């Protein structure tokens, strides 16, 4: 099978992630996900408790990561912010994966005019930088997480649908498919019970890589002050808030969310790459 995960360039064909790095990244991903899930219980303080008298104070016993320019606890905002920062990309990945797999499978299985219509529309979306699309949609529909998530999902959909399409096309050539068809199994049955489970791991690897990119794009939108509402704790938003503090010489409240974003994206990339490699090796 000559189909590879359509990784975005820059992460393609690399065998770098060695075992310890992979374990480390997987551990970090788990940590961040747990923090997001348990945020209301483990958050050390109210992330929105303003204390202007204490603004921009450094780390202390009460505020181990310091506070921001409104005196809000940085650690609490980081932990709570993990929720929005991960929920958005999750929505993007879930939507683009489901729709992409559905479209890709249909296009490959039915072929003909449906395939060419779907392929053409895919190319139209490719011609549009995903982030620009998201910015436009936010411009139109105003703040809120739904609009940018849908916009990015649409922008990411072609990556998944094109991958699925080529995988299903390759899978269809295999002899066991015609064997099942001869035995009178329906196409939908074969797709669900045999083709999709075989295609799944590759798509999952692609979606994991997409997660990192979606996180970058959504955090960028909140940095612009678009998308996430102003008071919601969110990493991109925290960088925006922290920027004014940085310009006044208090970098700490901006550094933490920056670190969180970079590490999370790197961790998702490394894990996704590793999975893609594993899938590639399995197929060889």
């Amino acid at each position, binding site marked *: 099978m000559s189909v590879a995960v359509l990784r975005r360039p*820059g992460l*393609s064909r690399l065998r770098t992630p060695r075992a310890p790095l992979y374990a480390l990244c997987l551990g970090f991903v788990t940590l961040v996900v747990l923090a997001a899930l348990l945020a209301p219980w483990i958050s050390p303080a109210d992330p929105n408790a303003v204390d202007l008298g204490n603004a921009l104070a450094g780390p202390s016993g009460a505020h181990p990561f310091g506070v921001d320019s409104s005196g809000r606890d940085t650690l609490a905002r980081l932990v709570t912010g993990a929720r929005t920062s991960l929920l958005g990309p999750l929505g993007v990945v879930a939507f683009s994966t489901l729709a992409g797999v559905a479209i890709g499978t249909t296009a490959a299985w039915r072929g003909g005019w449906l395939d060419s219509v779907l392929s053409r529309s895919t190319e139209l979306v490719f011609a549009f930088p995903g*982030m620009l699309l998201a910015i436009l949609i936010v411009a139109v529909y105003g703040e809120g997480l739904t609009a940018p998530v849908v916009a990015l999902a649409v922008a990411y959909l072609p990556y998944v649908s094109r991958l699925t399409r080529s995988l299903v096309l390759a899978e269809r050539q295999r002899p066991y498919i015609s064997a099942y068809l001869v035995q009178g199994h329906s196409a939908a049955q074969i797709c669900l019970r045999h083709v999709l489970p075989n295609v799944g791991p590759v798509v999952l690897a692609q979606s994991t890589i997409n997660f990192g990119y979606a996180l970058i794009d959504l955090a960028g939108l909140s940095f612009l002050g678009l998308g996430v509402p102003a008071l919601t704790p969110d990493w991109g938003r925290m960088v925006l808030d922290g920027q004014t503090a940085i310009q006044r010489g208090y970098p700490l409240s901006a550094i933490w969310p920056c670190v969180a974003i970079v590490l999370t994206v790197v961790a998702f990339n490394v894990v996704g790459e590793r999975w893609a490699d594993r899938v590639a090796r399995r197929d060889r």
Partner: protein
Amino acid sequence: MNFLRFGLRRLAEMALTLLAASFVIFGAMYLAPGSPADFLLSGRSASPAALEAVNRQYHLDEPFAVRYFRWLGQLLHGDFGRSITYRTDVSRLLADRLPSTLLLVAMALVLVVVVGLVLGRIAAVRGGAVDATILVTTTLAVGTPSFVAAVMLQGLFAVRLHWFPAGGTGDGFVQMLWHLTLPAVALALYLIGMLARVTRSAMVEVLGQEHVTVALSRGVPRRKVMGRHVFRNALGTVLTTGGLIVSTLLVCTVLVESAFGVGGIGQLLELSITTKDFPTVQAISLTMVGLFMAVNLAVDLAHPLVDPRIALAPRRSPA
């Protein structure tokens, strides 16, 4: 000639896609909830007469198709309409602000191409610890969004060390270069990492091919083999990322220009969105998509020159 026909065909395709994009952009703005007129009158309870005057001035009362084709017709004459916020022609706004954006993108592009190619080449040629170091560095770079890089660079080099100005565009070419250095680095960082990794893996792939051994067996010095064969052959792969590089640069200027207060079209786009200045948003979006497509076309046309094996096929998309 084959090349000419290929070029014309791609040009026609590009025009069609651009048309589709213009429809999407215009349609999205049309469907927007809330009228620009409300914003124009900024919440003042205007008399129906005033409202109608505004509506007539900006053609807000006509049907969709009429407005779309009027807009399209004006576009073809280089008329992007009037900005609602700035109350001038959008084309004037663009003309004022495009140069700094183009300079910023060009500086970043030079950085990406030079540093990315050099790093990737060193990693592939040296291998070992150098390779590992570059890989770890580029892994971090690839995980760093441009706005994070912008904020960090600003904090370190402008606020703390005072080596560079913290923002603004500057007057005159030299001052502009000076002001745009940090934004360009912030814009380039992610793409440097990406390009270095693409270059490295493409070169490693070529290194394993027999013609490299053959060149060495004929006494061609290793350094020359690296340049004339390995690097040269890797360029085709590198070129296919050209479209992605430029589209990323264009979109990320919005973030970086906002972070550094650079008065380019990226910042203008952000401002126009917050003020719902739709004619400006439309014009900038379309300009970005157009630039992006022009670069893709250039990449498509350049590819056969870099790799004579590439047939002049109508499109590049793999099956």
